[in-house]
């Protein structure tokens, strides 16, 4: 068991010991050691069934490099013995297979560190009983007096940190804590079942269940009585923040990733400086916004996290890089090295080799409210109010997508009508940005690392 205040120092001390051992095995090689430790507690209540977990995710990862050959090994645990196991395995792999990576130019050189995000110490004081009571109350709030409402609630706390050190002198650590409550409410009427998901995820304060359960039930209820659209046509689509976040992650989250760019898989890899979206669209990745869940002092190779403009008023400005792909692209790292990163993350992040992911994508809001966005749509359109199924299975190379939006409303002559049955929505992510009609002013911070308002696109095919 570690304490939050002592975590960074304790991890750095283990790194120091590990690096000394590594050098004793091969003084001519470069080494990098990464340690992580996170304590996770959660309580889940589903229709009276309770699931309670409390454990420690801890592990280490080692990279060894020599003559442009690089190997990676990881093991669970952060004891000296387990770290040595990874070091030995990585050294052994390097000896067994000498495959040069011509792009590799060494690990990161020491740099300054950035700022940690904010953190409410009260989060660490949440007890098991607090989580149980909050989840129970959240469920009751969602169910209200309705007999045909099912609810699944979860409350949890996650705190910990990581440390990174290498033989070039990098010795950095970062720590953070967050907590959350979330509920999925399902409303049943006859054969019809409609669900909605709401949440409060934060690092700035203890989560607040107020209104969260009620909102999920309200949203689910509004979807009842859905009628079939009976139309196959191109029409405008309004994506509310939750849905729009998934669109941006599935498109720019992949194509602006330096790995996709360098590998030639991103269709925008050669378009820096081009207009790839309408002028109303601006997005940057901000790894230093104190309130964002993805904010850390350093990224997962020890580079300070920063703020990177990706698209400014429709013009493609930059991609997201770690040091490896930045050097391959002849540019600087943007501080986006991650391990097991991405919107949904890996459960044992230390097992993932360093990669690239956004920290917090932030879309600059427009001036129109959601009502004004609806009013701006002539003729027929659809309003997508939840993450469409299949959005994360789209291909970065083609940019073509075909998803099923299950939670949808019809928009007709500038007004929101009733719910409609699931429709398939297909098109091209990138043509979508070129045909972006409106950006709303209803900015929302989602749990998936995107802060975004509603977006209105033209030109997607709707099959009702």
């Amino acid at each position, binding site marked *: 068991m570690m304490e939050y205040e002592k975590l960074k120092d304790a991890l750095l001390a283990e790194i120091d010991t590990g690096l000394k051992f590594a050098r004793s095995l091969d003084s001519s090689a470069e080494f990098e050691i990464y340690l992580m430790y996170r304590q996770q507690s959660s*309580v889940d*209540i589903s*229709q*009276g*069934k*309770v*699931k*309670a*977990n*409390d*454990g420690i*995710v*801890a*592990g280490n990862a080692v990279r060894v490099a020599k003559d442009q050959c690089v190997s*990676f*090994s*990881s*093991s*669970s*645990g*952060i004891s000296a013995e*387990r770290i040595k196991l990874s070091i030995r*395995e*990585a050294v052994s*792999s390097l000896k*067994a*297979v000498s*495959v040069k*990576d*011509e792009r590799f130019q060494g690990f990161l050189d020491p740099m300054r560190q950035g700022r940690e995000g904010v953190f409410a110490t009260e989060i660490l004081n949440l007890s*098991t009983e607090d989580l*149980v*009571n909050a989840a*129970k109350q959240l469920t009751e709030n969602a169910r209200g007096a309705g007999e045909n409402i099912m609810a*699944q609630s979860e409350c949890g706390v996650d705190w910990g940190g990581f440390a990174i050190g290498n033989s070039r002198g990098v010795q950095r650590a970062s720590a953070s804590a967050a907590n959350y409550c979330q509920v999925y409410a*399902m409303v049943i009427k006859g054969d019809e*079942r409609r669900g909605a998901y709401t949440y409060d995820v934060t690092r700035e304060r203890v989560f607040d269940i107020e209104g969260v359960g009620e909102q999920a039930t309200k949203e689910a209820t509004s979807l009842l009585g859905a009628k079939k659209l009976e139309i*196959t046509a191109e029409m405008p689509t309004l994506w509310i923040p939750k849905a729009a976040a998934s669109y941006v992650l599935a498109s720019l989250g992949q194509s602006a990733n330096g790995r996709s760019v360098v*590998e030639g*898989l991103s269709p925008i890899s050669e378009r820096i400086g081009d207009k790839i979206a309408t002028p109303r669209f601006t997005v940057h990745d901000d790894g230093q916004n104190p309130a964002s869940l993805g904010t850390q002092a350093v990224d997962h190779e020890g580079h300070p996290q920063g703020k990177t403009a990706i698209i400014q008023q429709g013009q493609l400005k930059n991609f997201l890089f770690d040091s490896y792909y930045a050097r391959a692209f002849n540019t600087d790292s943007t501080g986006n090295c991650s391990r097991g990163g991405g919107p*949904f993350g890996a*459960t*044992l992040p230390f*097992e993932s*080799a360093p990669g690239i992911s956004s920290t917090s994508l932030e879309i600059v809001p427009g001036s129109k409210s959601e009502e004004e966005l609806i009013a701006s749509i002539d003729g027929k359109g659809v309003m997508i109010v939840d993450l469409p*199924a*299949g959005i994360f*299975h789209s*291909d970065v*190379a*083609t940019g073509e997508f*075909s*998803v*099923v939006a*299950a939670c949808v409303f019809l928009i007709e002559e500038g007004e929101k009508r009733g719910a409609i049955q*699931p429709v*398939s929505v*297909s098109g091209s992510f990138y043509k979508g940005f070129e045909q972006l009609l409106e950006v709303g002013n209803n900015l929302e911070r989602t749990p998936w690392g995107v802060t975004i308002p509603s977006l209105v696109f033209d030109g997607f*095919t709707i*099959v009702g």
Partner: protein
Amino acid sequence: MIDKLQACVAAGEKLGAQFVEARYDDLTLRTLNRTNDVWKDIILRSRAGIGITCYHDGVSGYSFTASTSKRDLEEAAKRAFKMAKAAAPAASLKLDFDHRPAIKSKASDTFRVKVHPRTKDLEYKTELVNRALEAARETGKEIQSVMTWYGELFGQKLFTNSEGATLDWEFLVVDLYCRVTSKTKDGDLVNGVERASGTKGMELFSRKGSTPEDVGRATGANATEQLKAKACPAGEFRALVENRLAGVLAHESFGHLSEADFVVIGMSPITGKIGERLGTDHATIIDEGTPEIAKYGGLWIPFDDQGTPASKTVVLDKGILKHYLHNRGTAKHLKQKPTGNSRAVHYAFVPIPRMTNTYFKPGDLTEEEALENLGTGVYAIQTAGGQVEGDGSFLFKAIRGYWVEGGQIKHPLREVSLSGNILQFLKKVEGCTKDLMLIGGYFGGCGKEGQYPLPCGLGGPKMVVADVRFGGKA
């Protein structure tokens, strides 16, 4: 190590737990990835840890740790009991289970292969990747990128509980996976993928059809065919669903609805429908932990993570719902037998009802007869994943396909999405071919409640389905 697990059980019982389970996984995972001329990943992972479940008043608390020190194991047992005790008053649904005699594993519970991957060195495995990649490269000038992966996951799984069960067996899966991206003359990028995988020894890669060269060439051929493929029209069409895609439908769409943790809380739309007709006579869905690997492929899972032996569960029998997939608690609650489906991705997760090898049962048609029955429509092949909702609605991507008219294949189709609701889909199954294929590998895997990727097998025959909604261009 089993003595440490037994000490965990004793520690939990001493605290007051009514029942305790303790398990230890010591797994080795290797990932190799070469992309064009660059080795992206040469990765070895050692994943070892202990998970402890304490039961108190019909409620479980779970804790885990990667440490095996006495102090940390005692702490984990304490945390598990504390969670169970704190959670019990909030639970209105208790999932007690009947005790049973202590189960012991045998040496034959570990699947025996001729050449275990641990006996082959790293160089041999990188050469598998090189061979597949080079073979793929030779298939076309339009190729933009070739990515080839080798993966293996193997190791010991130990389990004990308050009944004195002693299980000690080894899990194994290997996977050689290739992906080719080519560029059409219009500048569009198209893909081809193929793999050879399952609970197999390294002898798999010497067999016709699954040598690295065979995998590479087949992948390249798929991508080459896509160069002249047309977009699938949007709308509802008759469909012939290929084996691997049928497996995804069995697993993702229907299998998850039959997992009893969704059923006991009423979230599954097939709750309370045992004995009801949900599909045509051609729709039979089975979940089986130890299938005939040599004949059909798939994964070998002789015990689940609650120590229950594998079974062959007919979930849907000729369209009639027969059984759910259980852990011990849900089985007792629903008055069915435990099915050996309580699984966890790794030690950091509590076991929950998951599938093992899930497949549609084959029928009696040949592929020619199936095409004839299809008449005009879409022959949808392979899958690039998809998504399902709790009500049974689904969306899957078929990586490729053909447009068929009058039972004749006319032209290839680009990646196409299929969508609908599985409960409607099952009522439209008109026939199945006689060939059964199971797949399951290291890459990919099943996700549920944050537990990803769990290796699962899936498959089926080719299936003729009356109407399926295809996305595409209007």
